[in-house]
């Protein structure tokens, strides 16, 4: 199956020019003086059944992207087209009904589960809200089934979240997301808080569920080896913009954007004494409130040219499903 072709013929989700600006207020009257451009003009598509990875360092806007797609944060501009319908234009009530198809798994399994509800209640709640089943008995059966699917004992449904370990809590979060049979799941750093041995359990579970239910994932992570393992296509973000988007093997074998190159070379690899060239970036990520002119990466870029300081590079297609925003490829 060629995921690329598939993504071009019938995307499940299409993001066009998505923007999310956070106002900065200052002074006595709290006037809006500037904006943090957390997500600035982002466009990509997600095909049915694929996993799109979004990577980048802290503050690059990857989580904001996930939330703006689901309208957990109202987008400042752009369109989010899900099955032919623009989510950004729906009324809050219509959007709420849409969330049946679009679910999210959060990073912190400690903060995203209500500590006063039992696990059974947590998983059942979405079914009550969307009136999925007629009787409480049917719902309870579904809860038990979901708990088994994610590898929890169904007799533990009367327990509270604090009685479970981090990995088990993440499984609860996954069961809750699955309760409504969603089509798309945004997974925002789902394994970052977990130890490696638990991380592999959760990743395997997510892959099983994808096969079983035909799920589509947007997988947000800062961990490049996890993303390589789990995703079909990967988008790299820097300071609110996507700098490169490519099928995973192409991206890891031949990264085009200088930022992608240095990011990949910075990952420590569990192979001692392996020789490789490392590109160490100097300096820190600039503030998104006051991003550099032209290409936002030019202040740290090893291949910076004059044009990079003044002109913003277009996010252009390089063929084979690859996209890059860099003046190096403008000839």
């Amino acid at each position, binding site marked *: 199956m060629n995921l690329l072709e598939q993504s071009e013929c019938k995307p499940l989700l299409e993001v066009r020019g998505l923007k999310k600006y956070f106002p900065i207020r200052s002074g006595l009257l709290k006037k809006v003086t500037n904006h943090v451009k957390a997500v600035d003009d982002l466009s990509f598509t997600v095909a049915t059944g694929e996993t799109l990875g979004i990577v980048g360092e802290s503050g690059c806007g990857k989580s904001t992207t996930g939330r703006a797609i689901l309208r957990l944060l109202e987008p400042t501009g752009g369109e989010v087209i899900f099955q032919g319908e623009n989510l950004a234009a729906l009324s809050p009530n219509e959007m709420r009904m849409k969330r049946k198809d679009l679910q999210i798994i959060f990073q912190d399994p400690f903060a995203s589960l209500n500590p006063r509800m039992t696990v059974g209640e947590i998983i059942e709640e979405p079914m009550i809200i969307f009136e999925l089943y007629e009787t409480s008995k049917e719902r309870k059966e579904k809860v038990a089934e979901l708990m088994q699917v994610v590898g929890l004992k169904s007799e533990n449904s009367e327990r509270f979240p604090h009685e479970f370990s981090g990995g088990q809590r993440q499984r609860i979060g996954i069961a809750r997301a699955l309760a409504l049979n969603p089509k798309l799941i945004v997974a925002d750093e789902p394994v970052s808080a977990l130890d490696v041995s638990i*991380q*592999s359990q959760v990743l395997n579970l997510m892959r099983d569920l994808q096969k079983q239910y035909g799920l589509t994932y947007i997988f947000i992570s800062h961990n490049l080896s996890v993303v390589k393992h789990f995703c079909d296509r990967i988008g790299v973000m820097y300071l609110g913009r996507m700098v490169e988007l490519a099928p995973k093997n192409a991206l890891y074998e031949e990264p085009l954007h200088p930022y992608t190159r240095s990011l990949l070379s910075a990952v*420590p690899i569990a192979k001692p004494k392996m020789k490789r060239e490392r590109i160490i970036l100097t300096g820190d990520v600039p503030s998104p409130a006051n991003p550099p002119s032209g290409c936002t990466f030019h202040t740290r870029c090893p291949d910076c040219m004059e044009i990079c300081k003044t002109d913003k590079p277009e996010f252009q297609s390089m063929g084979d499903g690859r996209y890059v925003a860099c003046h190096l490829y403008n000839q």
Partner: protein
Amino acid sequence: MLEIKNLQTRFRTDNGEITVLDGVSFQINKGETIGVVGESGCGKSVTSLSIMGLLPRTARITGGEILYNGENLVAFSKDQMRKVRGKEIAMIFQEPMTSLNPVYTIGAQIMELVLNHTSMNKKQAKEHAIQMLKLVGIPRAEEIVDEYPHQLSGGMRQRVMIAMAMSCSPSLLVADEPTTALDVTIQAQILDLMRELQQKSEMTIMLITHDLGVVAEMCDRVVVMYAGQVVEEAEVEKLFATPKHPYTVGLLGSIPDMDTEQEYLFTIGGTVPSPGQMPAGCRFAERCQKAFDKCYEQAPPLFDLNDGTKSRCWLYE
């Protein structure tokens, strides 16, 4: 240089005392970088706090010795320990945000250490602080020295922590997850800096981390901990090439490999036993695919395999 012998550390809890470190032994040789790896709760941080004499009030060392150049640190008084800490053995912590004092300038925090441990006067100490900041690659060191921690980014704060730790030229640096809170590109900068400083000053580093990639890049020797015990000790290349203990094998198998395609990752089933309820036999037996009867009945000792490798597993009896 540092030898930990059969160290036992216990914590007081509402349900009585629990043993968090149970018979931890390993040694650190001069000039090497030793990695201590393991998952959350395995006791790697408690080991480092025991060495530093920085255990919380609810914890105490109930057995064993920590020999530093032949002297037992466990028997040291608070005053004696204060003379060692910072001067002989320095530590950097995971959270550069919380381990710097927000109400003192960066210079004042470095100077405090220098004034306590050396005969420098204030002016010399400030000069020294600026030098240290330059050494760890902080731009505008003359100005930064009078700034407060909140004015710096995470990577810069970790550099300040390293400058502080290095300011009295310690012979051993204990680094507890020094790059875990940082982004990969910043992590690469900090690891590079640590390597460079080590070459310059012939310092010994004990690096505590859960990231096997960092271990592979930084360390000469590795100690793997599980549930409060050392389960394997080996040279770094041997550990990655031929891991001996089933837990190490599982741990290495669980990390996604960037070079090969795998549909599913290897997993270690189950979870770590809680410190209050350790099984009688091997602590890993419940999750081990190779476990046999003896594993459930008798706790294995740390077997010496005679090539610098040690493994706490009955398979190597």
